[in-house]
């Protein structure tokens, strides 16, 4: 029987309410700090490293590349083009994938038949689709969207399916008892219940969409197809210009961080908060 007691006085003045604005700020400051630390590390390593400047460009020499690319507008227009394609393509992918996933979830035989194929399609590299897409659509944005969609759709389907699989059986019983039609069940119970898993799937789907886009943009490096970030990356490799490659990588990372911070993270936070959970390390207030 422990007679040692622990004073909890230290807990006393801690209010469970944390200020939200502060929290929001945190989620921006921390990544920015991380980036600064990583950049400094990179610069130091590039100074110390025995590798030639053209093989391992430091941040300064990469930054030196920037004005030129900004001046001829190619970087900004490439980002614009790619971002537009990725966002619109992703939206289309979500619109197509969601009903397919729901159909699969409700048609056991279809799911058994097509489900494994969907997972297999996820594994197929995007460039595999390029020849077929070109035959069908030639050198048009349709080709690029085809490759992007075939990359993103299977992943979103799988995300939603596993979200639905994880729905507690009791919710299904509830919806039956409440007399929900299939459609009502999907809209009022299944989709909201699967939401957290679905959003996790969407995040992966977005990654697939963007990566497939990069692969699709290698089809043509400018010309009749508008230049995208993927083309720019390939151009950097073709010209043995690692500064350009690094610059494009950083651009992609930046876009990725922004999409995460302004889109996925807030949605996820909202979903979890609605359900009385929280992302680890975030206050539940």
């Amino acid at each position: 029987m422990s007679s040692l007691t622990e004073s909890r006085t230290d807990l006393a003045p801690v209010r469970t309410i944390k200020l939200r604005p502060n929290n929001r700020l945190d989620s921006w400051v921390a990544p920015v700090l991380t980036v600064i630390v990583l950049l400094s590390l990179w610069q130091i390593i590039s100074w110390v490293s025995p590798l030639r400047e053209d093989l391992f460009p430091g941040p300064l020499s990469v930054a030196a590349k920037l004005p030129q690319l900004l001046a001829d507008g190619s970087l900004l227009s490439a980002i614009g083009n790619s971002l537009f394609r990725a966002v619109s393509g992703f939206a289309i992918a979500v619109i197509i994938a969601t009903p397919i996933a729901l159909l699969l979830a409700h048609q056991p035989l279809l799911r058994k038949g097509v489900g494994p194929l969907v997972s297999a399609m996820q594994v197929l590299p995007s460039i595999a689709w390029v020849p077929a897409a070109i035959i069908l659509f030639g050198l048009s944005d349709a080709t690029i969207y085809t490759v992007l969609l075939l990359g993103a759709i299977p992943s979103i389907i799988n995300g939603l399916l596993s979200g639905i699989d994880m729905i507690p059986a009791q919710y299904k019983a509830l919806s039956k008892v409440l007399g929900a039609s299939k459609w009502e069940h999907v809209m009022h119970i299944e989709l909201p219940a699967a939401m957290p898993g679905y959003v996790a799937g969407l995040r992966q789907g977005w990654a697939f969409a963007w990566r497939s886009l990069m692969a699709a943009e290698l089809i043509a490096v400018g010309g009749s197809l508008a230049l995208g970030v993927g083309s720019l990356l390939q151009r950097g490799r073709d010209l043995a210009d690692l500064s350009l490659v690094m610059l494009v990588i950083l651009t992609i990372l930046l876009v990725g961080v922004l999409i995460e911070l302004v889109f996925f993270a807030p949605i996820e936070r909202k979903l979890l908060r609605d359900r009385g959970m929280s992302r680890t390390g975030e206050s539940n207030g």
Partner: protein
Amino acid sequence: MGVLLNEVSLSYPGTGLVIDRLSTEIDDGEFVAVLGASGCGKSSLLNMIAGLLAPSSGWLEVPKDGAAFMFQDANLLPWLTASQNVDLALKLAGKPVQEREERVEELLNLVQLGHASDKKPHELSGGMRQRVALARALAQDRQVLLMDEPFAALDAITRDMLHEQLRSLWGQTGKTIIFVTHNVREAIRLSGRILVLSSHPGRILETRRITDDLRNNPTQAAALADELTTILRKEQRKHELTDRITH
């Protein structure tokens, strides 16, 4: 006709018979209480009546529009507020919006949760969740109402009040109510008939009709409560013996 069970048996994969050839007829507008030891199959029985489980053999008849069901655990949807949870039942019953709003408020007030209507389930206490579930079950407005230990998490006072509400609701609407409880006196106070289930397997051990006279006579009621408790105790003791032999 209310609910008819004919030689209904149930077993889960890997279990023996949970319910064994249970037959009973529950009239339209009857108020029936089901008593039985923990794990004897009361929830399973309600699940079958609600159409959530198919019997392993036998058959049952229920009104075509199914039954309203208050689950043993509150089973609220965590992303909806208390009022949205209740509202969902009305929405899925096809009620128009204006009517719904009013009805939700009415129901939440009935279970004394008018002040908590905008809270999410995780912000409610256990008893409050149960009351939201009760409001939702009442919102469904079906001829048959199944309730699985509806008042278990409530304090005596709230419980008393809800007893009254439920009795008056039953009087007004003539619903068929089947409810599971562990509280013998609650069963006597509310129901018109008490079914006592045996366990392993679940059969009807005893059926008692409760008249209003008996209900309102404290001594008689107490005597019946004692009697039922004794029946339950005897049944339990039998099992303890078998248990000790088999294990």
